[in-house]
């Protein structure tokens, strides 16, 4: 598994975490290039369907990021996100998917260093788990 490079989709909320990612860039923080960012207006915009689709289309891990509790631009979006991800992680587990493949993190626009740290941690964790192989099992 030494040459396995994980593919990770990270959803970035426009008002906080995207800024955090931007800052990480400005500050020249180092983090792996395994993460592919998708900007959304709020973490609550990410639905379980998006996460499923990411996995089915080849992601080995999915990271959802948003503003810290209390800071959501739309007031309670991230509370919905907390519940959504929690409920959905249980569902994924029933389907035999390792719950470590999905992660929720709060990253503010001032936390460039946290952004880089989370991306690094997630990449290493998924590297350890190995690829998520959803190719059809044969009869």
């Amino acid at each position: 598994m030494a040459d396995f490079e994980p593919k990770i989709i990270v959803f970035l909320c426009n008002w906080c975490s995207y800024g955090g990612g931007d800052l990480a860039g400005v500050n020249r923080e180092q983090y792996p290039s395994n993460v592919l960012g998708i900007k959304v207006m709020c973490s609550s915009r990410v639905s379980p369907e998006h996460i499923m689709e990411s996995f089915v289309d080849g992601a080995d891990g999915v990271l959802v990021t948003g503003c810290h509790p209390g800071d959501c631009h739309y007031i309670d979006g991230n509370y919905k996100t907390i519940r959504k991800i929690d409920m959905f992680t249980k569902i994924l587990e029933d389907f035999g998917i390792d719950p470590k493949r999905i992660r929720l993190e709060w990253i503010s626009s001032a936390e460039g260093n946290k952004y880089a740290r989370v991306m690094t941690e997630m990449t290493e964790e998924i590297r350890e788990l190995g690829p998520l192989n959803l190719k059809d099992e044969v009869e």
Partner: protein
Amino acid sequence: MSDKLKIGFYWCAACGGCEISVLDIDEMILDVVELADIVFWPCAMDPKYEDLRAMEDGSIDVIFINGSIRSTENEEMVKLLREKSKKVVAYGSCSSIGGLFGLGNLYSKEELLEYGYNTPSTEEGGVIPAENSKVPEGELHLPPLLHHVRSLDEIIEVDIYLPGCPPLPNQLKEGLPLILEGKVGKYDLVSQKSVCDECPLEREEKKIPRLYPIQEMMLDPERCILDQGVLCMGPATAGMCEAPCPSVGHPCIGCNGPVRGVKDQGARMASALASVLGVEGEERMEESEIIDVVKSVRDPTGSFYRFSLPKSYLRYKRRDIHG
């Protein structure tokens, strides 16, 4: 020969409910017989495999296939029926979205057989039926189970989907004539509206602080069941049934599957539910308290995917978690 349409019915891994539902349309069955001759219907007529093989390709105008695809026999039969038929209708939820039996996809076939034949509740105690066995009269063959339950369209091309467990008389009264007259497209009978859109109960815009098992609740028959704290699949389920279940005080359990255009009923329900669950004043709460609400959602996988698991994104249990 009459120039009436030639139609047929076939069941795969089914409970029989779909077969019965055809008779549920009362006197309208006479209109159907007026329009069509039934040329193949094992439930009522006892034809043999050879009879079907002997039919000319494309000689059945419309075949209605119900039940899930669970065994190699189901698989072979529907492939044969596809050749013999001009139009294939996936009749009922088992056939169109995998159905109730699809919940078995959360276990391996070996686990299911073990559970079915080797638990204290089973009399034979540990005798799992063999695929081949010798008896004085000769050799018997049982078609093996497939690795997982499938919807019909995983095996053959489907021309029209008609979900429902089983499709209800009102769905059939609307749908059957259109099917026979060739007036419906593939997904026309899968509603774009949800059960909530058709539900007569009164909804409020409010947060639901937790869910309760239905047996613990005295439900107000006028108010939305979900608002009262009992799980109702209405928001993530296709209508056209006219919401008979919530109308008589029972939550929708999702039998029609997802609304047209939605791929994954369970993921949709998780979204919908996460948005309405919650407590007032949660801005001042710890994350763990916010998550507490979710604990009251019992068996989300089994409840949200009760009828549509084989057609969800993941379709069956994967082997990603190791020991």
